[in-house]
């Protein structure tokens, strides 16, 4: 009997990566597949910070945009190769995460609002015309030199694999259990010998790193973008809603959430955005009112164990 972790790796991670690695061969809409992978990464990133520690990252896109601009600056000014620049994007996001660690002192709604404000502050900082020499300000960047959607897509699949592996680790390790204990009751957890601050900071930086890598790869893939694109609040909101819809603090929840909701989005979203926005808003409200623990709660309520 293999351990739970290896079963999760074998039956969830491996098929997921295999499917997304093979799909471009049979399905033509490459951009759509890429967006699916990006949202899988972001939803799992939200899962790590919200699902396991209870901090709602309402400005999660700040890390994503920071990663994208980290990538862009390395490519524009230093002509670094794309893969290294993506790693720099991750590092930039981690640095931003470090800068924002004091926010973890806040709780509940205060953290969510402060995080939202932080992401908007980074957006206005990057988009400031006074910094045109470095970030090109509000006029956007164009990185035709590194443009290579195929490589960027596989890089995204790799990052997705690593992210899901990180969630599998959290789900099956003492570390993940300690995080959830901190989420439920920080005082009791610290009395049981858990280093609360260190735990939270590690989860926070891990989720920042994930979003930063995703942002770097996104910049690599689209190659032309504006601050408003990569700092769009939709990334935070979508990632949070997808993760919640499936069910947080599980491995499969965010995956199911992305595939169902982003699938619906692409079926009805493009032609009439305002009707989509209406349906989406109603869906979110219905979710909170009737299924606050996500789709997986339908199964857990019946006593089934959902990884």
């Amino acid at each position, binding site marked *: 009997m293999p351990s739970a972790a290896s079963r999760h790796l074998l039956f969830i991670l491996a098929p997921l990566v295999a499917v997304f690695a093979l799909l471009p061969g049979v399905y033509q809409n490459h951009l759509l597949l890429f967006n699916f992978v990006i949202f899988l990464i972001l939803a799992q990133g939200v899962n790590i910070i919200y699902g396991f520690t*209870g901090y*709602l990252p*309402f400005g999660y896109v700040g890390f994503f945009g920071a990663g994208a601009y980290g990538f862009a600056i390395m490519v524009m000014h230093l002509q670094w190769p794309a893969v290294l620049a993506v790693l720099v994007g991750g590092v930039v996001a981690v640095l931003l995460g470090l800068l924002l660690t*004091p*926010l*973890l*002192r*806040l*709780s*509940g*709604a*205060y*953290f*969510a*609002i*402060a995080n*939202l*404000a*932080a992401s*908007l*502050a980074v957006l*206005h*900082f990057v988009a*400031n*015309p*006074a910094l045109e020499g470095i970030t090109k300000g509000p006029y956007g960047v164009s990185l035709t030199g590194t443009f290579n959607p195929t490589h960027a897509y596989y890089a995204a699949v790799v990052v997705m694999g690593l992210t899901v592996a990180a969630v599998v680790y959290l789900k099956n390790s003492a570390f993940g259990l300690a995080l959830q204990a901190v989420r439920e009751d*920080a005082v009791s957890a610290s009395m049981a010998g858990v280093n609360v601050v260190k735990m939270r900071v590690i989860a926070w930086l891990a989720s920042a790193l994930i979003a930063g890598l995703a942002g770097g790869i996104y910049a690599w893939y689209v190659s032309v973008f504006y601050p408003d694109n990569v700092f769009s*609040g939709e990334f935070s*909101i979508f990632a*949070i*809603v997808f993760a*919640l819809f499936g069910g947080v603090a599980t491995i499969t929840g965010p995956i199911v959430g992305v595939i169902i909701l982003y699938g619906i989005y692409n079926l009805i979203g493009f032609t009439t955005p*305002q*009707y*989509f*926005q*209406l349906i*989406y*808003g*109603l*869906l*979110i*409200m219905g*979710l*909170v*009112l009737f299924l*606050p*623990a996500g789709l997986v709660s339908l199964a857990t309520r019946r006593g089934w164990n959902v990884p």
Partner: protein
Amino acid sequence: MTYALVAGVLFGLYFSLVGIGLNLVFGVMRIVNLAHGDMLMLGAFIALGVVGIAGIDPLFAVPLAFVVFLLAGLLLYWVLVPRLQGSANPEMLSIILFFGLSQVIEAVTTIFAGTSERSIQSRLLGSVFTTIKVKWFGGKAGGAGPIQILGQGFPAPWVIAAVTSLIVIALVYLYLYHTRLGTLTRAVMSRRDEALATGIDVDRVSAAAFGIGLGIAAVAGVFAPFMFGSITPAFGADATVTSFAIVVLGSLGNPLGTALGGIVYGLCYMLVQTYLSSWADLLPYVLLIVILLLRPSGLLGRRVRVA
């Protein structure tokens, strides 16, 4: 300098009006109303309707907006809040629930009104006063010119909005400290459980606070086309963040602190816009983060909510 200071105070009073409804709702119910900005936007559309259909002074929209949104708030409260309060983590889920609501409102408004910017001629506001003056005291008809304060001319709508804000803040104070329902409201604010245990009808008190909060937001919205120049259905999201900055500045959960927060915000806003205009966009967010980190309870708050 004098101009910036006086304009700051005028705008600050208006900003207090913008924030106070949000704060009332949070203080009483611990619910984060992310649809607050959309209530403002709808209030502005009521003003547009009053001017467009009846062709009278938009000031008449103030009582209309208040009553309509008071009733809408009561209805909304009974539909949404009891279910929300029954869930595991109402404060977090309220953020997502009301985000969904704001999406619905924005989508419906877009479907009916389109995305174009709308504005109202600023001389229409306050035309009722000029008419009365002409009828009773004679003199020539015509739009009110700029109003002189400390030797500087300010647009009449700014002054009218500031005066209305003062009146509304005074009324909120009277409500909270000199009526029975207000006293009960303060009891629920300080300790919800104990209020429930003493036999206070918490649901009734909260519903009243929710309705009044939305009503005040709509009243603030009536003036939005004059203070910000024009209005679109997408105005709501920015207004929400600004309101949060103001509310947190004053102290979350203390409606009268909001008056102070609004004035501080208004002064900073005007000073930064006068001296450092390209960085003015950053101000609300940076101010919000700094205040949250240095004094999470706000300028007037007690230390209550640090993790």
